[in-house]
């Protein structure tokens, strides 16, 4: 539980950026309405690429702080996996209902 709390604290640094990307995807879905099935794969790729980009930038600017997490036994790989799983889960949790109820 403590480990999750610490990982979430790291994730909160970029939560807003990831949420904005997710909302922009939902906005595009709404905008295209019934034709949105044509851009579905593009939106998923957009989300995946931005996750990678935000991760890269975050790790670049917070490189020194990574030792804090490593000293607590949380590796860089663990941070990447938990972050990606959480963010993608949130994305699909909002994306699928939005698409279904268009």
């Amino acid at each position: 539980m403590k480990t999750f709390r610490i990982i979430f604290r790291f994730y909160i640094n970029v939560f807003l950026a990831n949420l904005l990307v997710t909302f922009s995807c939902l906005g595009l879905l709404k905008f295209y309405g019934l034709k949105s099935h044509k851009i579905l794969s593009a939106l998923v790729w957009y989300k995946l690429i931005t996750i990678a980009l935000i991760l890269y930038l975050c790790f670049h600017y917070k490189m020194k702080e990574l030792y804090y997490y490593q000293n607590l036994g949380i590796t860089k790989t663990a941070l990447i996996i938990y972050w990606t799983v959480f963010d993608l889960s949130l994305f699909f949790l909002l994306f699928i209902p939005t698409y279904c109820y268009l």
Partner: protein
Amino acid sequence: MIHSLKVESVELSFGEKKVLSDIFIKCSTHEIIGLLGRNGQGKTCLIKVILGNLRANNSFISFDETKVVNSLKYPNLIRYLPQFNFIPANLKLKTVFEDFGMDYEDFTMKFPEFEMNQTSRVGYLSGGQRRILEIYIISKSATRFALLDEPFTHLNPLQIEKIKDFLIEEKSNKGIIITDHMYQHILDISNITYLLKDGKTHLIKTELDLDRLGYINLAWYHL
């Protein structure tokens, strides 16, 4: 119980340049091992190899005779103080102590100047205070070995003396490997000191060895 950390057969090169080639370091509980070396001799690289953050061409890192590849994955074995500030500035001191499962009261008993700071954020501390906090967290937390990279940076002479006493006290619980350019402090507190030169570790007994190996020039000190 006495634990041991052995670093052997480390070979590291970047392209044609051989950085480390003949390394042997052994650290046990109750010991402080000093590691000296000029800039660019590979001290930080060696530390990263020990932690598993840098892959060497060859290395054998063992804890109690058991080979460990990525030791920083196991904070109960080893913790690392980098030469820069690593605790996120936005964290409160009490959060840091909770994360590492440590008691803030013990800290203030040792360093009373932190008494009122429990709810302060790390970023509001002075450079020296921040360094003391980091040294304390790494050295006092529950781990068998602590690797301290330039701990005396940012500290004033009084703080350095206090930290030296603290480390001597703390070695009763763990093994400590310490590297810094303030060699006199290292010689004061170390049980064994090595100098890293030309990719090899050289055992140091006195300042004369450091002079002989070109790390210091004693003639300048006696002018």
